């Protein structure tokens, strides 16, 4: 027992020392310390610090206090801090967060000379996410994301299909025909498609089939529409005929893993997958292809943003930093180093590789109708999104019909209006 106590107290002393040292360091700095909250998909917080290093060097009175919080609890933590009255000065947020938090963000207006000029620098979909319901810009777009299809090129090659060329004009029927050939021609390929287990990725199919979440005035949910029903039924048919593995939407297996293992021919994910696949896929060649056409060709926009809060303590400095971070040079550097699409219209990001893949995502994004962003920024769509996912799974299992599912979603959503 004594030995143990000794060991523990030595450990303890060592830690206290470390703290004392930390505290002294802090005392020597005065001026402005910006608290920054971030979440990481890979190493974005480090890249952010590298990107603003020149700004910090020119402004030695600004210091950064960075906290990285896990994504799964990020929104909850932000909500806690906001409702407790001490939000961070700057935070990285997603378009989903914006739908829930936008009313507590500080408007950009008043900190820049011309807010309209700022808005024109970014892609319309990104600006749509960053504006509140009165059209006031409250966040700077940083990266854009696009949902889309990535395929196992080697497998398509084995089936004698030039998938890059085919995808320039293909429809979902043509995709299906090709996918079945790929499965037949490759021993290892078991499935044609894996779709991420999220309502956002499902909406890719939905928008492509001409469906939508709400009516066009956004005054009510209208999940019950022919396009959405067609998408759910197509999704179910692909599951029932073995074109899509059940284990993703029913067993929550990770589709990116299935794709990396080389057992699915195509994956509906998005621009962020380029980074992962680049690092992890060594056994076959993969490329990004254009989205198959249903009623229309569509991707689904998304993205990340940077914002400050109404109750932030250092709003002036926070806004100054955000403006600099979002300018062309800094944004290009950040997007290049995090391997993302830029949200700026004027950016010319020089990626070290995969520039064709990024270009395909970008092209499909420009074909995407604007209402997709407007629907996804609506708070009610966000609130019922998990419920939507559950109802789609209920259809896949066979517990309810697609008709029943869309009806339930509309009823549930009605309670939020």
């Amino acid at each position, binding site marked *: 027992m004594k030995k143990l106590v000794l060991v523990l107290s030595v450990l303890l002393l060592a830690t206290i020392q470390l703290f004392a040292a930390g505290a002294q360091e802090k005392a020597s700095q005065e001026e402005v310390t910006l608290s920054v909250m971030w979440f990481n998909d890979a190493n974005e917080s480090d890249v952010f610090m590298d990107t603003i290093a020149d700004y910090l060097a020119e402004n030695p009175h600004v210091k950064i206090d960075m906290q990285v919080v896990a994504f799964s609890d990020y929104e909850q933590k932000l909500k806690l801090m906001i409702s407790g009255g001490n939000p961070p000065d700057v935070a990285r947020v997603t378009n989903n967060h914006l739908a829930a938090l936008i009313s507590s963000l500080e408007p950009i207006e008043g900190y820049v000379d011309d807010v309209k000029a700022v808005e024109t620098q970014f892609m319309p979909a990104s600006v749509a996410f960053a504006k509140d319901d009165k059209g006031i810009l409250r966040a700077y777009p940083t990266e854009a994301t696009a949902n889309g299809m990535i395929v196992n090129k080697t497998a398509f090659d084995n089936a004698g299909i030039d998938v890059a060329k085919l995808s320039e004009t293909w429809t979902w029927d043509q995709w299906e025909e090709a996918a079945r050939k790929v499965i037949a021609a490759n021993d290892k390929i078991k499935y044609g498609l894996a779709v991420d287990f999220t309502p956002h990725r499902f909406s890719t199919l939905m928008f492509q089939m001409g469906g939508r979440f709400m009516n066009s005035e956004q005054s009510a949910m209208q999940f019950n529409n022919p396009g959405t029903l067609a998408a759910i039924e197509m999704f179910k048919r692909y599951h029932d005929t073995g074109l899509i*593995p059940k284990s993703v939407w029913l*067993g929550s297996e990770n589709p990116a893993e299935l794709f990396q293992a080389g057992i699915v021919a195509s994956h509906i994910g998005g621009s962020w997958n380029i980074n992962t696949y680049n690092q992890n896929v060594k056994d076959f060649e993969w490329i990004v292809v254009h989205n198959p056409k249903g009623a229309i060709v569509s991707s689904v926009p998304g993205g990340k943003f940077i914002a400050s809060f109404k109750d932030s303590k250092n709003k002036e400095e926070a806004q100054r930093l955000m403006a600099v971070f979002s300018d062309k040079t800094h944004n290009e550097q950040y997007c290049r180093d995090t391997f993302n699409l830029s949200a700026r219209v004027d950016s010319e990001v020089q990626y070290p590789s995969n520039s064709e893949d990024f270009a395909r995502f970008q092209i499909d994004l420009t074909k995407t109708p604007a209402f997709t962003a407007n629907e996804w920024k609506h708070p009610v769509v966000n609130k019922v999104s998990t419920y939507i996912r559950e109802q789609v799974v209920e259809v896949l299992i066979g517990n309810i019909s697609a008709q029943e599912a869309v009806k339930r979603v509309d009823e549930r959503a009605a309670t939020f209006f």
Partner: protein
Amino acid sequence: MKPKRQKGNFHQTITPLLFLLPNMVIFVLFIIVPAFQGLRMSFMRWGIFTDPKFVGIANFKELLGDSVFWVTFRNTLVYSVSVVLLLVVVSLILALLLKRNSLMGEKIFRAVFYIPSLLSMIAVGIAWRFVLGDEMGVLNHVVRSFGGDGINWLTDGRLAMTSVILVSGWALSGYYMVIFISGLQAIPTDLYEAARIDGSTPWKTFWLVTLPLLKSTVLVVVVLSTIASFKAYELIFAMTKGGPGYATKFIVQQVYQVAFMEDRMGYASAMSIVLMVVIGVFTAMQFVFSGKDQGYE
């Protein structure tokens, strides 16, 4: 200079309250006060950034007709009852096998069984997805290499519930084993000696000596595992996300979703009040069944 005290008497008031003081202060400040706030909120309509509005028992009324809530309620009951039974049996067996320091390597074995409880629930979920995954799981890999089709451990509703129960048993048996072992230490060794001299078989000794004297520990294990399993969430979420469909969705996950995704804090509070009442009833029943020799009443 002795304080006035009835000799040999356990009836005292000031001393025990002083012993209880630090705990009580922390409890009141950080659990009980917030909990009462939660109770108040269950009678409000309330989003995280909006002002609470009193709505009486509307939240509870809505709960009665909320079919999703009742599905999660049923799932929680099925899960809890199965997990508690599984845990009591398995951890008691482990404790009996490993209580004596007589087997070679017992220390290591105890540590081995305890390791799963050291893992964060997220890590446990990840580890078992590697094992049970439909396409990427080791078990199905083995099944397929023998020519089988693969088993839908997590993709089939009923199997998913079974898998989740078994994995919970795996994750927590070591924890309750430790409680049982420390309880077994309190049983005087001369009783075993006497039973052995009387020619009692190990089986009989277990029922006549060990189990009766282990009663207070069994109560601890049953109560703690009941409460924990009613509140279980992270492990299941990491394994199945509540699916397929609603097959493994439990109350706490639903509470979480309603509170933070749908931003209905009042309704979520009402749900958790119902959950608390149910746990309370179960726990009270366990105390009543365990009888008077526990020192209550």
